[in-house]
């Protein structure tokens, strides 16, 4: 018995040490960033001014607004494509599930850098003959104030996350019964979708949308290589100038997106944990 107890205590110590080291590593940079932005080591004084300055910084509001609309476009495109497909594989075509899962895995492994090299080539092709519809389409896609080409590819890279959230949402409800009941009462498909399925999918849709928003706000690779300036690219460009401001913006955006994501997935987790028996 005594041996058992000491063994247990040994296990616990080991666990505390491991979790402690990892926690220091994970929280260290964030705390350093916070300290760096509020304490001026030359003047030896505290100040929250970097957090106030950001709103008047050149380009900040423009890039935030542009990124927000890019995110909204991505979310809309994502759901239009994914929701009907997910419902179809849940109801009628379970055979296609592995195919969709594999498609949703590809962006996790495929490097955006490799893909964007191809994208820039394709965009270059359209610019060959001026005045044609292809040229105009190409130019519209690359409009500096709202580059539509970005959401087209963001939609692909968000796919894994949206797929998971929607899948979890669809599993949590008894989709078949709901649909059969609604259809039996004479509702056409659009009504079933709009008034029965979507309201029940709220949590899944919300978490998918929030994940997309966070991803689009953090996306740097595609946008910077194609030469656009959404939020993340703006931080880097601005970071060359004043140190404190860029770090303040970074920290704030990280904490904000993490807080929202945390809240949404925690609520989602609580809800699905509360109704475990319904899917069985």
């Amino acid at each position, binding site marked *: 018995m005594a041996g058992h107890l000491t063994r247990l205590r040994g296990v616990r110590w080991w666990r505390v040490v491991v979790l402690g080291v990892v926690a220091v590593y994970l929280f260290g*940079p964030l705390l*350093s960033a916070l300290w760096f932005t509020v304490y001026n080591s030359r003047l030896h004084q505290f100040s929250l001014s970097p957090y106030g300055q950001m709103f008047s910084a050149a380009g900040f509001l423009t890039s935030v607004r542009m990124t927000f609309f890019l995110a909204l476009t991505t979310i809309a495109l994502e759901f239009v494509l994914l929701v009907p497909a997910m419902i179809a594989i849940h109801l009628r075509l379970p055979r296609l599930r592995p195919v969709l*899962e594999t498609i949703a895995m590809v962006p996790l492994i495929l490097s955006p850098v*490799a*893909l964007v090299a191809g994208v820039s080539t394709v965009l270059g092709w359209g610019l060959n003959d001026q005045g044609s519809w292809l040229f105009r389409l190409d130019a519209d896609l690359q409009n500096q104030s709202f580059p539509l080409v970005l959401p087209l590819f963001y939609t692909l890279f968000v796919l*894994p996350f949206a797929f998971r959230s929607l899948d979890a949402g669809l599993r949590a409800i008894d989709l078949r019964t709901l649909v059969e009941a609604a259809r039996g009462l004479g509702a056409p498909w659009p009504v079933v979708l709009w008034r029965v399925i979507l309201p029940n999918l709220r949590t899944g849709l919300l978490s998918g949308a929030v994940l997309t928003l966070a991803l689009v706000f953090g996306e740097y690779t595609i946008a910077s290589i194609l030469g656009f300036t959404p939020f993340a690219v703006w931080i880097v460009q601005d970071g060359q100038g004043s*140190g404190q401001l860029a770090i303040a913006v970074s920290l704030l955006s990280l904490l904000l997106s993490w807080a929202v994501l945390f809240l949404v997935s925690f609520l989602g987790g609580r809800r699905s944990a509360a109704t475990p028996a319904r899917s069985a």
Partner: protein
Amino acid sequence: MAIATDPPRIGAAESAPRTRAPGRRRGNLGAWGAVAPLLIYSTVFLGLPTWALLYQSLRRTDPGSGATTFTTANFTQSWHGIYLTALWGSLRLSLLTAVISAVVGLVTAHAIAQSRGRVLKQAVQTASGVLANFGGIPLAFCFIAAAGTAGEATGLIRKVIPSFQLDTFTGLVLVYPYFLIPLMVLTTLPALEGLRGQWREAAQNLGGSTWDYWRHIGGPILLPTLLGGFVLCFGSAFSAYATAQALTSGTVPLITTRIASVISGNVLAGQENLGMAMGIDMILICGAMMAVYLPLRARSARWLDT
């Protein structure tokens, strides 16, 4: 909610026996119609750039005559000189950080799986999903504040590694695990929680030691998940661009930063398509990892469901 990598529950959808309803054929057509846009979309938007990459990587314009010919010169060149150095640098960095993250992540996940608090587990799972996928540029800037030239913890790190600089290979080795460890935790935690206490008791009752348990039961069950997690970490490190670019501005030779600099025109005349060849190299390596990862995932998923 596990964000990125929880295993699929194959077969859950078709468990209920179904009666063949009249008009099923038409319904199936409708279902295909609902899936088709997604399939077409992903085929076009993944396929078109890949095809463009492949086509361009095989073409080269001679700067003297202006003639464009099909050639494998781009590929040959992408395996030599500074381009090989970049590929090699990426592979070395990914391997090193993936090994570190896999070990630390596994130990962390084990420590968490042992604890009883449900809230802790849910919090860790959510936090891992968030940390693993939503860092990028802002994270790099936090590290600049922590360990950059004027960083708060730079002095502390230099006591251990005197020549430490954030914009070097060593610096990247410090930063990459920040998003790889959570990825590993996210991948292995469900498998570690799936290990039943009864299996360990059964092994003990049959006279097996702790070592025997891990050697013959725990280890083999966990192995596919561990390998899968490792491959995922490796792939994630291999294709990372934003963090490396923000921290080093391309001073550390990596394939991603090299491709980006070639695309933006930082290359000799006539070699513009080298970036495309390197892109294809990357896709091939990613494809190989995918081919390793997918069967592993399916294997570990089998244990998690029962």
